[in-house]
């Protein structure tokens, strides 16, 4: 890190990336900022409204509801997927022909288009013809995710666990496989317990990748849209309407541009803030 040479010409190498990302990020973001401070009555006629939309969004129970559900969802997702992913990674074989098979099978859910994931879980969980729904009802649980908010929540979370835990597994596994065998042998000679091997050898080696896992899972679960939308449509009622679903509803469904734009900006700033914290932590751990 420290021996990098200073070279301002490096900007030239970064320029193409800068241009394409700026095209996609700066122009649309400015459009959103524009909408968020204006009102319109007919196409092309805008009035400056200042912070009206922001005040409206920040004080609306609908936004608070979506925000609360979003945080709850993300918190549950992280609380399940990170430990589960680490546990599965620890249980994986370290070498041999089965490693590739396990990795490929585990990575499979990650490469399914998100709306197919939603559609797949939709038919998997239907109470009358889906394996999960039929099975639960057969076992005596009254389960119908299209009508019961709790069942809908459980299904949405189970779906996300199904979809994304493998990412944590793969990351944690990558961390584990970078530990030389000699470490384990030394631990064995010292008579270290299983727990202290985990605490003092495996966990420190996984720290960096686990921060990446946490960062990726936070970002992606915080902007989750397609899967729950296809599965439940945000319902029953509003029970699984997360921030992105609510935002798309406001922007495209109701064409409420000002509100949607103000929501976008608030949403984006929140994501950015949390990610900055993670990112700083990650860079610190990389430097040390």
């Amino acid at each position, binding site marked *: 890190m420290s021996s990098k040479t200073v070279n301002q010409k490096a900007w030239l190498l970064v320029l193409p990336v800068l241009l394409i*990302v700026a095209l996609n990020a700066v122009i649309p973001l400015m459009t959103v900022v524009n909408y968020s401070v204006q009102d319109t009555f007919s196409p092309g006629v805008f009035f400056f409204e200042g912070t009206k939309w922001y005040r409206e969004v920040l004080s609306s129970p609908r936004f608070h509801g979506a925000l609360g559900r979003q945080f709850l969802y993300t918190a549950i997702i992280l609380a399940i997927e990170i430990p589960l992913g680490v546990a599965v990674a620890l249980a994986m074989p370290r070498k041999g022909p089965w490693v590739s098979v396990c990795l490929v099978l585990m990575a499979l859910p990650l490469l399914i288009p998100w709306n197919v994931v939603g559609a797949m879980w939709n038919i998997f969980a239907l109470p009358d013809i889906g394996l999960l729904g039929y099975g639960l009802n057969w076992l005596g649980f009254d389960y119908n995710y299209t009508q019961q908010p709790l069942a809908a929540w459980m299904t949405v979370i189970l779906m996300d666990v199904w979809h994304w835990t493998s990412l944590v597994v793969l990351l944690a596994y990558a961390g584990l496989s970078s530990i030389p065998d000699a470490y384990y042998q030394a631990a064995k000679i010292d008579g270290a317990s299983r727990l202290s091997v985990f605490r003092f050898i495996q966990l420190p080696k996984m720290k960096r990748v686990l921060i990446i896992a946490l960062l990726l899972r936070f970002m992606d679960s915080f902007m989750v849209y397609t899967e729950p939308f296809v599965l439940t449509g945000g319902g029953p009622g509003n029970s699984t309407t997360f921030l992105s679903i609510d935002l798309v509803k406001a922007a495209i469904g109701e064409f409420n541009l000002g509100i949607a734009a103000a929501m976008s900006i608030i949403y984006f700033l929140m994501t950015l803030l949390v990610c900055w914290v993670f990112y700083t932590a990650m860079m610190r751990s990389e430097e040390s």
Partner: protein
Amino acid sequence: MRSVKFTVVFVYILFLMLPIYWLLNMSFKTTNEILGGFSFFPQDFTLDSYKTIFTDSTWYSGYLNSLKYVVMNTVISVSLALPAAYAFSRYRFLGDKHLFFWLLSNRMAPPAVFVLPFVELYSALNLFDTPIAVALAHCLFNVPLAVWILEGFMSGVPREVDETAYIDGYSFPHFFIKIFMPLIAAGIGVTAFFCFMFSWVEMLLAKNLTSVSAKPIVAIMTKTASTAGYELGLLAAAGALTLIPGAIVIWFVRKHIAKGFALGRV
């Protein structure tokens, strides 16, 4: 201990495979049989749904459209990210750290925020409803990701390699293509895999940036789900077919997948 480990992995993979099995199961049933009741295996095995997809151009063109923008996006993302990642991994320059975070922050931007402005932007550029529009839009999150992954892999190559090459009189482009790129070939493969993956699975932008001629398969599926009543058999078959490109791509990178998922920084 061994058997506990085996059970954990086995149960986890079983859990992953169940919904996929159910999708395949449904895709071999007729819609009537699906709606008729619950069964573990297709009673009345049929390939009709698959036949419909391979013969009806609205269906198979959806796959082609998707593959078009996914491939374009992968090529654009990787080729633009290569020099940038090199700059970040080798040099310090004014604002480098801020720039790196700004790039990453775009990976964090919720696509829902950008749907409407994107439609406006690409309509203004006269690119609406073309594969290149989707390919460029997906650069929003794939280019930063590609830079991030490649930077990780490049930082693993000792700087002495560069210095020796420059002393030997290589010019930068010559050195980069002839010497450096082969050294990080695995990293480039993994990066391409990730770009492919995230472009392939994304739906919100792909759906909203196209209307007729460039409609991706994911959008055709949602439309079928909502308009043609409930063609479940067809929907399941279409879904099952979307698993194939992913499965093929994973198979190619299976050796590097673990390191790749750690974005090269283990």
